[in-house]
């Protein structure tokens, strides 16, 4: 039993870290033609995420792989139930990855404009789709003994869409703050202003989300039975307010850190509410996929625990090292000088 709980925690951490790390890449991608007025700016923007986006995306692959290895039944049903949504997500991730690499390989303006457009769309779609998917998971999927009774249109219910918008706004602000930290001059100021402009919208949507969650899902049940857990959503709210306080003080790095905490805590808030479900059924709780009825055997979980205990610390160590190597601001001069850059 304990191993399943451990893997539930790990599952939550993998998703939360993925959203924290790829969140600013997606946000930066969504903002890049709006904040980058000319080609130089746009190259700066892409190069702020250039060294790290690929490594950040691996958290998603690991989250997927961990779901497969630890909760194969959930993996199988979730992925086939959400088929069309995942397909769109895949297309977007494929296009995003090649856009970064291909954009600078031709000098024509049309070529660059096309890839710029591709970057914006392929950054927006995953942000929205992840939100819609998680909103629907929080609310539960229509599944019973005979299987799944939903469709893509079903997923676009008001609560799913609201969660989608929440994710998009979280990532937009996250990306804007990242850019304001990583760039200089006018570009940095524009990014800072963008974060300030979007913040009230995020606040409204976050409040609406917290309220709607009461009616659309059973996420609050766990909090009522163990009120000390409320510390997590409270931290989410505090961090969300922290973003505003810190940007007002001009502490952009602090605001970005606060935005990291916000995303982590938002994901944890939802996941704590889910426990012990991975996907609740909103037709009949008996057909919910829980960590106990969809998990791998204890033997497999033990092996996987050993692997993670050995390798995750190494991964985290070299990731921290890389963020240190690439600390500091990206400037136009630097990008123009470096032929290898994007």
């Amino acid at each position: 039993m304990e191993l399943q709980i451990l893997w539930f925690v790990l599952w939550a951490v993998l998703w939360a870290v993925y959203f924290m790390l790829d969140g600013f890449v997606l946000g930066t991608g969504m903002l890049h033609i709006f904040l980058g007025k000319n080609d130089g700016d746009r190259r700066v923007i892409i190069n702020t995420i250039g060294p790290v986006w690929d490594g950040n995306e691996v958290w998603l692959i690991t989250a997927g792989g961990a779901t497969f290895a630890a909760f194969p039944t959930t993996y199988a049903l979730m992925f086939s139930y959400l088929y069309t949504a995942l397909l769109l997500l895949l297309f977007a991730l494929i296009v995003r990855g090649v856009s970064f690499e291909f954009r600078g390989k031709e000098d024509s303006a049309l070529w660059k404009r096309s890839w710029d457009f591709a970057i914006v769309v392929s950054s927006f779609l995953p942000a929205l789709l992840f939100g819609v998917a998680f909103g629907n998971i929080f609310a539960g999927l229509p599944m019973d003994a005979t299987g799944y009774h939903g469709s893509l249109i079903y997923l676009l219910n008001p609560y799913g869409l609201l969660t989608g918008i929440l994710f998009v706004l979280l990532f937009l602000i996250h990306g804007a703050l990242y850019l304001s930290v990583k760039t200089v001059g006018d570009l940095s100021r524009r990014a800072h202003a963008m974060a300030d402009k979007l913040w009230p919208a995020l606040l409204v949507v976050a409040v609406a989300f917290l309220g709607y969650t009461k009616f659309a899902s059973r996420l609050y049940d766990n909090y009522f039975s163990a009120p000390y857990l409320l510390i997590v959503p409270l931290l989410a709210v505090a961090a969300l307010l922290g973003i505003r306080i810190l940007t007002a003080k001009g502490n952009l790095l602090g605001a970005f850190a606060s935005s990291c905490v916000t995303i982590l805590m938002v994901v944890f808030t939802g996941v704590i509410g889910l426990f012990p479900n991975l996907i609740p059924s909103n037709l009949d709780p008996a057909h919910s996929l829980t960590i106990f009825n969809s998990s791998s055997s204890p033997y497999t979980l033990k092996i996987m625990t050993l692997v993670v205990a050995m390798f995750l610390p190494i991964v985290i160590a070299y990731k921290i090292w890389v963020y240190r190597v690439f600390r500091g601001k990206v400037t136009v001069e630097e990008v123009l000088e470096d032929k290898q850059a994007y």
Partner: protein
Amino acid sequence: MDVLTLSRLQFAITSMFHFIFVPLTLGLSIMVAYMETRYVSSGDELYLKMTKFWGKLFLINFALGVVTGITLEFQFGMNWAEYSKYVGDIFGAPLAIEATMAFFLESVFIGVWIFGWNKVSKKMHAISIWLVAIATNLSGLWILLANGWMQHPVGYVLRNGRAEMVDFMAMVTNPYGLLKFGHQIVSGYTVAAFFVMGVSAWHLLKKNKPDFFKTSFKMAATFGLVSTLLVAVIGDFHAVEVAKTQPAKFAAMESVWETKRGVGLNLLLIPDEIKECNALERICIPNMVSLLAFHTPNAEIKGLKDFPKSERPPVTPVFYSFRLMVGLGILFFVLSLVAVFLSRKGKLENYPLFLKIMLFALPLPYIANQLGWIVAEMGRQPWIVYGVLKTSDAVSKAISTPQVLVSLIGFTLLYGTLGCIDIYLLTKLARKGPDDDLSAIIKPTRN
């Protein structure tokens, strides 16, 4: 068409497309790492230029290899949910381990390599590309252990209505998976060697930067000779393993219909699947198939007729793919031998015909790699896990024909477009050649 057929077609298309890029990355990463090491140890700027030029071609491929890989992981859940449920306990582990052990390493250090030219020391920069190369090959190991388990399942029991892992080490040391890995990575090295030789040959024919391309060609020729030799040797051991563990696949590879001892190898052979025999058998090398299969000339080979029709793989595509793959393998060895001889003697330019052949040979190892996968995957049919689970029982129940049809069309269009752009960019950069102006090349600044 039904969900099963469409899903199979989709898996075939997406994995074969992914597999256009992977073999080159396996080998080219090592070659670029070697070039950079030569630069760091000798300070010779020719090797820096080589690192930059071949590295640029490597990166375009790498990007597509990475993004198309995610599709494959997702598809197990999307299209093959019954499979994922049934074998997830054992099959999910190598995929998750690949991500934690290899994929992170590869993706993080490729960032250091691309963007770190003036942020890390020369040595650290070279180490980064080595880490990428090691991780790429390590990632192949875990994927092929997973695939090897589908070909020859070990270390599991059927319990609670699914396959459960009972012996992790059995999967890790599964000879089928290890041999497949060995055969595959050296095939990838062959692709890379012929890629570098082909591009170099084009420039040498144009008399363009001969020093640069002669050095590149020579390095690739040696790499190619070693890898083609290993492809054959490991391939032979691999075939022995197939004969032992997947007799129906082996019978299809050689088109053997009747069970008998001391089976000979017909150099000319046309299988006739409907009549369940060979329409043509000519120029027979006696006992050769038995010798290849079990390393004893009189070994018994089980014929296809001894398997129920419902458990036979499609013979014609498996047989021809195998023949053609082996034929190409022999050709690659011969070409590499000549390439090493001519480049060591410094006589490459005297033989434009050979250079032309090497240019046109560039795509052939790609084809051989794809053929190898047809043998491996089609030869396993109708099983998705050999002897345990049929492909027809593995497909998702929750998806519909129009859904899969739309996704299949979507993948074909998207991949088709990306493939064209990729070939366009590769050709453009390959023709342009290396940067001459050393000031345009950023060198690692710190030591």
